[in-house]
């Protein structure tokens, strides 16, 4: 059923193919610039975290609360989700709808798994007396880690919306551009998470 869409769209788009290429490339580059600006947002949060990382105000310290096993599982979820998104992109390049959706669903589940662990962690910390109000350290911690979590949440919503788009229009030029942008976004979140687990969690329990 979806294959019909593909053929129809390819045939339809063919005459102005070149124009679409340029627009798509510009859109993706524009999205890349947005991601670069997002890097600066995270840089300020990392800087804030570094500056406040000694301010415990008598509250719990990260060393007491962090559970690296949990973080390792969450990290594995994200690393694998980057790989599965890559697989989805390869399927999309070959215009294989079923394969692409399958890989995207796996990516979605890994993302949800990561978010679930993070929510559990936040809840767990708060029961142990570490909330954003506790100290400068925990304010900076929640600001940084939850901003990354919100991005993952945004990526998941975006993926759900894309399912609807692909269901409706198949492999149209617009949809492929959207998928490419989400792919950039998803890999970017993985990169930010590498900085988070290195700077916050690993250094935190040292």
């Amino acid at each position, binding site marked *: 059923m979806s294959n019909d869409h593909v053929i129809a769209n390819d045939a339809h788009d063919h005459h102005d193919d070149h124009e679409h290429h340029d627009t798509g490339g510009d859109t993706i580059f524009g999205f890349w610039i947005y991601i670069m600006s997002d890097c600066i947002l995270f840089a300020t949060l990392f800087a804030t975290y570094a500056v406040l990382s000694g301010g415990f105000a008598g509250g719990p310290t990260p060393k007491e609360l962090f559970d690296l096993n949990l973080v390792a599982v969450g990290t594995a979820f994200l*690393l694998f989700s980057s790989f599965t998104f890559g697989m989805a992109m390869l399927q999309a390049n070959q215009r294989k709808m079923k394969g692409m959706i399958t890989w995207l669903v796996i990516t979605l589940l890994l993302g949800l798994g990561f978010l679930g662990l993070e929510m559990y962690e936040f809840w767990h910390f708060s029961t142990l007396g570490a909330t954003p109000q506790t100290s400068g350290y925990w304010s900076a911690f929640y600001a940084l880690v939850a901003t990354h979590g919100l991005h993952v949440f945004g990526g998941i919503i975006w993926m759900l919306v894309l399912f609807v788009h692909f269901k409706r229009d198949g492999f149209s030029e617009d949809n492929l551009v959207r998928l490419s942008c989400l792919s950039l976004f998803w890999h970017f979140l993985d990169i930010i998470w590498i900085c988070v687990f290195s700077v916050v969690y690993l250094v935190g329990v040292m």
Partner: protein
Amino acid sequence: MGHTNNEHGTGGASHGSVKEYTIGLLLSLVLTAIPFLVVMYDMASPAITLGIILVTAIAQLFVQLVFFLHMNSSSEQIWNTTSAAFIVLTVAIVVIGSIWIMEHLNHNMLMGH
């Protein structure tokens, strides 16, 4: 990233392959496992541990950029790479600059007196 998936038929191979993604995944798993194990099992002194975390993190960033984001110095990638280099510089100024300033501020404010 310029034209990642807009080139019907011709794109695919040069923009990533199963092999490339698999190598990327394996490298990133190894580069993640090393610092986690070192920290979890207390395998080195704090200074060395910090060094290992830093080196593996930076190596992993390059793995992600090359294998997953397919960043390179080819002409269609040049603006992505240029903007990324600019952002790396900006980020370094923001992070290192903030830490540097606040360290001095704390020092000059006679913390603990």
